[in-house]
C-alpha cells in the first residue's frame, strides 16, 4: 500500500502541492482527478522520485521512500506507466519486459551469460505478455507496435517488475473506445492483487475502476470519497466536467 503524508512542494511563490495526504490500501484503486495545472503531474513526480517534496513523506508498504532516487523506488516496489508512452524502441516486446524483470532479479553487472537465454526472465516476460494481451507480438520490435499496443507494453513493462504498487499516469491517453474498454477490463482484473493510483481524465475508467477519488485543484485536495460522493460534492464538478462548467 501507498501512503502520501502531508506532501508540500513549491516552485518559488507557486505552491503546487499543498499538504496532500492520500492513503491507498491493499486491493484499492484510488483515482486522482483535477483540471490541467492542478498539480497532478508534480504529485506523480514526487511519488516516483523525479522531484523531491519540500516536506512530507511517501511510504510504500510502510517503507519511507521519500528520499530515494527514481531507480531505488522502483527497486522498492513502485511500478509506473507514463502518460506519453516510454518503452525501449529497439528492443522486442519480449525483451522490453524481460529487462524489466531483470532489474528486480539479481545484479545486472553480469558480463558473460547471454541475457536473452535466461529462462527465469523469459518466463516472466511471456507470462506478462499473456496478461496484457501481447503474446502474439512478443518478437516484434517495440518501434513497430501500434499506439494501442504500445500502451499495453507500457503496462507490461511495469507489471514484469512485479511491483507492490502501480502508479498509472493517464493509461487511456490516445486510446480508442474498444481499446479503452479492454484496458479497463485488464486493470479491473489487476486491481484486487495490486493497489494502484490512477490519474485519468476518462470518466468511464474512473467509475469502473476507482474505489475512491481525490479531486486536486490548485495543489489542494478539495474533495475525496467514492466516485458517486465526489460527483455530488460542490466544487468537484468543475474538475469533473472541465473548467468553466461549474
Amino acid at each position, binding site marked *: 500500500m501507498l501512503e502520501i503524508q502531508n506532501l508540500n512542494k513549491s516552485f518559488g511563490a507557486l505552491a503546487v502541492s499543498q499538504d496532500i495526504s492520500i492513503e491507498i490500501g491493499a486491493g484499492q484503486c484510488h483515482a486522482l482527478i483535477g483540471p490541467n495545472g492542478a498539480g497532478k503531474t508534480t504529485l506523480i513526480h514526487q511519488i516516483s522520485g523525479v522531484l523531491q517534496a519540500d516536506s512530507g513523506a511517501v511510504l510504500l508498504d510502510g517503507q519511507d521512500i521519500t528520499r530515494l532516487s*527514481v531507480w531505488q523506488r522502483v527497486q522498492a516496489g513502485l511500478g509506473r506507466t507514463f502518460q506519453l508512452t516510454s518503452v525501449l524502441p529497439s*528492443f522486442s516486446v519480449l525483451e522490453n519486459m524481460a*529487462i524489466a524483470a531483470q532489474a*528486480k532479479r539479481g545484479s545486472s553487472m553480469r558480463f558473460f551469460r547471454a541475457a536473452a537465454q535466461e529462462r527465469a526472465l523469459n518466463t516472466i516476460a511471456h507470462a506478462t505478455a499473456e496478461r496484457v494481451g501481447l503474446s502474439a507480438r512478443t518478437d516484434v520490435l517495440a518501434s513497430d507496435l501500434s499506439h494501442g499496443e504500445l500502451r499495453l507494453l507500457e503496462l507490461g513493462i511495469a507489471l514484469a517488475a512485479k511491483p507492490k504498487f502501480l502508479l498509472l499516469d493517464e493509461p487511456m491517453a490516445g486510446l480508442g473506445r474498444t481499446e479503452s474498454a479492454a484496458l479497463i477490463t485488464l486493470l479491473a482484473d489487476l486491481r484486487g492483487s495490486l493497489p494502484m493510483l490512477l490519474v485519468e481524465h476518462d470518466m468511464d475508467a474512473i467509475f469502473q475502476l476507482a474505489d475512491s477519488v481525490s479531486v486536486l485543484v490548485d495543489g489542494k485536495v478539495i474533495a475525496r470519497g467514492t466516485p458517486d460522493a465526489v460527483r455530488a460534492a460542490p466544487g468537484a464538478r468543475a474538475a469533473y466536467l472541465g473548467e468553466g462548467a461549474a
Partner: protein
Amino acid sequence: MDRPLILAAFIFALLLALPLLLPLFGAAYLTGLIIKAMLLAIAAISLDLLIGHGGMVSLGHAAFVGVGAYAAAIGLESGIEDILVLLLITLAVTGLVALVTGTLALRTSGVYLLMITLAFGQMIYFTLTSLAAYGGDDGLTLWNLATLFGSDVVQNGAGLYYVVLGTLLMVWWFVHRLSRARFGRVLRAARDNPQRAEVMGFAVKRYQLAAYVIAALIAGVSGLLTVQYAEFVSPALATWQRSGDLIVVVVLGGLASRNGAILGAFFIVIVEEVLGSFLHEWRLIYGPLLVLMVLFAKGGLSDLFAPRGTRRSAH
C-alpha cells in the same frame, strides 16, 4: 551460427594464416601494417562499446591509448620488463584515470559529453607532452622492450603478431559476450531511453561508468601493445585527431559491430598506406572517399555482409 560469427571466424582465420601466406607472395613486409591495423581495431572495438552499444560518443578515447602506452613505457624505463606486470600497471593506471574522468564526464550526455571528453582528452595530451623526463613533445624511443617470462618472443616478428592477434580475439570475444549479457542489455536500454531504464530500476549512470572504464582499459591495452610494436611512445597517440580517427573507424565499420570495427580499421590503414604511397596529399582523396562510404553504406562495412532485408541501411 549467425552471420556475424561466420564473418568473425573468417576474419580471424585469415589473420591467423596471413604471416604464413604473405612470405609466399614476397609481401612479408606487410606484417607490420597488419599489426598496426589490429592495434587500431582493438581501440575501435572498445570505443564501439561506448558509441554503438552505449550511445556515448567520446572524443577523447585516444587519450586512454596514450595513457596505457605511457604507463607501459614508464614501467619499461623503470626497469620493469615482464609484459604481464606491465599489463597490470597499464590496466591500473588507465582504469584510475577513466574512473575519475568518467565520473565527471558522464554527468552529461550528447554533445556535452563530446565536449567534456574532448577536454579531458586534451588535458591528458598536454600532461603527456609535459613529461620532460620521458621525451616531452618529442616522445621517447624505447631501447628495452617487454619480455614474457624473460623471453623476447613477444618483442617482434611472429611472436608479437600473434600476441596482438590473440589480444584482438580476446577483446572481440569479451565485448561480444558483454554486449549480449545482462550488462550489455542495460547499456542498450540506457542508449534507447535512459529515462525508461531508470524507471525500470537501473542506476543507469553506474552501468555507463562501468562501460566507460572497461572501454578505457581495452584502449590502454592497445596502447601497451603499440609501445611494443613501435618501440616508441609519443603524445601523438593521445591527440584528439586520433580520437576522431577512432570514431571514423567505428562509424565506417558499422555501429555495435565488432567485425565492423576490424573492417573499418583495416580499411583506414590500407587506404592510408595505398593512397599515401603515391600521393602526398592523400587526404584529398581520403575525405571524399569517406563521404561516399557513409552515404552509400549507412550501416557500415559490416552491413555489406548482412543478409538482404536485415541491412540496417535498408531502414
